[in-house]
């Protein structure tokens, strides 16, 4: 279980990025963090994964202050993927997925590690690409390879920071379907920062709306995707339509 208890974060004295945030991550569900640029979504994700240790307040991982857990132990429970990675070294898909086993075996793969790597590659349908170099495959395939690495890491919690950046619509939908499957098939708990509110509405079961470093509202898509919540969060006029029981946001200006 991951609990955020009154966490505040600031880079300089007067500019607070997070203000007294409280949040309990819902197990075996997809939680989407939404909000305008600079709302503190990525910072909150960083604090929850201990990438940025909390300055005030505390993040509890299974009842223990996450700052007091060894990084290697955190890496066995929480996997974190940042916005589509810029690659500077040339490695194959399989190399990358094998890195996912590092917290468990320290780079010396045992038979069970090899099994996990193979499972992850198979699950993400990357068998034919496993010997290809990451710089030779498409953006969507590369994103799948990174997800495979996280699967090999075999953590109950997965945090994704804008996984749809630089992906076209087809790959974005494919990515969100994969994320949904991870929850349904493998019982993962997923927290994802999404830029496009409609992707959050369509795939998340829980949405956290943030503004100026605070959680304004959290709840099911039905509760959050309303003009009264979204208008102040994004500082914009929203029009919500119902399409087969799903809420869809129209946020284009119409005269």
């Amino acid at each position, binding site marked *: 279980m991951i609990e955020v208890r009154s966490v505040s974060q600031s880079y300089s004295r007067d500019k607070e990025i997070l203000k007294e945030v409280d949040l309990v991550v819902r197990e075996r569900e997809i939680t989407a963090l939404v909000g305008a640029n600079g709302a503190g979504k990525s910072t909150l994700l960083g604090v929850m994964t201990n*990438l940025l240790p909390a300055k005030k307040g505390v993040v509890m991982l299974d009842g223990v202050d996450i700052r007091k857990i060894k*990084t290697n132990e955190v*890496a066995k429970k929480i*996997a974190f993927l940042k916005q589509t*990675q810029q690659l500077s*070294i*040339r490695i194959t898909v399989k*190399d990358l997925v094998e*890195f996912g086993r*590092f917290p468990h075996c320290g780079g010396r793969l045992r038979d069970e590690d090899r099994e996990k790597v193979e499972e992850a590659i198979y699950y993400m349908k990357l068998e034919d690409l496993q010997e290809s170099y990451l710089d030779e495959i498409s953006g969507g395939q590369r994103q799948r390879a990174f997800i495979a690495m996280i699967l090999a890491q075999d953590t109950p919690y997965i945090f994704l920071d804008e996984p749809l950046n630089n992906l076209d619509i087809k790959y974005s939908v494919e990515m969100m379907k994969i994320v949904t499957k991870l929850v349904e098939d493998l019982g993962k708990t997923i927290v994802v920062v999404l830029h496009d509110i409609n992707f959050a509405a369509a795939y998340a079961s829980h949405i956290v709306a943030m503004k100026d470093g605070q959680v304004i509202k959290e709840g099911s898509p039905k509760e959050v995707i309303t003009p009264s919540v979204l208008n102040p969060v994004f500082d914009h006029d929203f029009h919500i339509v119902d399409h087969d029981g799903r809420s869809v946001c129209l946020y284009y200006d119409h005269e």
Partner: protein
Amino acid sequence: MLRRQWKRITIIVMFVFLALLSLEIGPLSDVSLSSFIYGDEVARLVFLHSRVPRTAAVILSAASLSVAGLLMQSISRNKFMSPTTAGTTDAAAFGLLISFIFLGHRSGVVQASFAFAFALLATMLFTSVINKLKIREVVYIPLIGMMYGGLIGAISAAVAFRFEAMQVMQAFNLGSFARLGNFTLVYIVLIPLFFSVLFATKFSIIGLGQDFAKNLGVNYNRVVFLGLIIVALISASTFVAVGPLPFIGLIIPNMATSFYGDNLKKSIFDLMIFGANFVLLCDIVSRLVIFPFEMNVSVTISVVGGIVFMIYLIRGMHSGKNRKAAA
């Protein structure tokens, strides 16, 4: 997989051939591998004290500098970083000069320690400043690094001039495998090479960035520091033993990458052999062009390496432009 095996076999065959050829060449034309095998006394002495140490020095310095280059590229996430393009080699020279001026002729170990300390400090300074500057164009970094190296070189020259040690400095700034005596120092590189193999996976992981490393529970700063120590140790001991071998740390990892990739755990062996082959070849050429005399190997390496470096630099500038156009 099979292709990988073949590539490996090819370079190993080349390596054996070049190593034997390197042993065969020498000003004493009646000393050859066959006379050595048949137990000729002169041949035995020549081989034991000259040719075998020389070939070993070529192989070890080339292999270790290739690894040092790849480590630097991994640490800085920049394909153009290397001991030559970050002031490391120039700082090692400065350290060697200081030890000479203040302590006089000392054992190679003392000289190497000075070179090591200077190389480590200069490289750490450069990498931390570069990280703060946040330069977008990757090709600027080696250019800035070469200027930085030039600055260190100029300070060394000024110090050498003041202490009337110009000749000494000129002598050790020429890379050559013809200096007997200090060769044993090159065996020091076996220690950093051992650690590079041991921590290979960690070095590859930090090459994917700080957040990526942290996600996998790798202590980024500690691995970077260890990497810089390895780089400085390799640069210093090879510099004291054979002098500067410019561009090796830069071009060998770049050339080897296209064949073997950058997963250090899998490719470190291929990388070392690849680098050894390149320098063995350069050394053989240097010894044959004006036979029975020889040219400094750093001249040959500079000519070939400079051209290859230019090609990569121009390619890097083009890809930088393409990336901008795409964004």
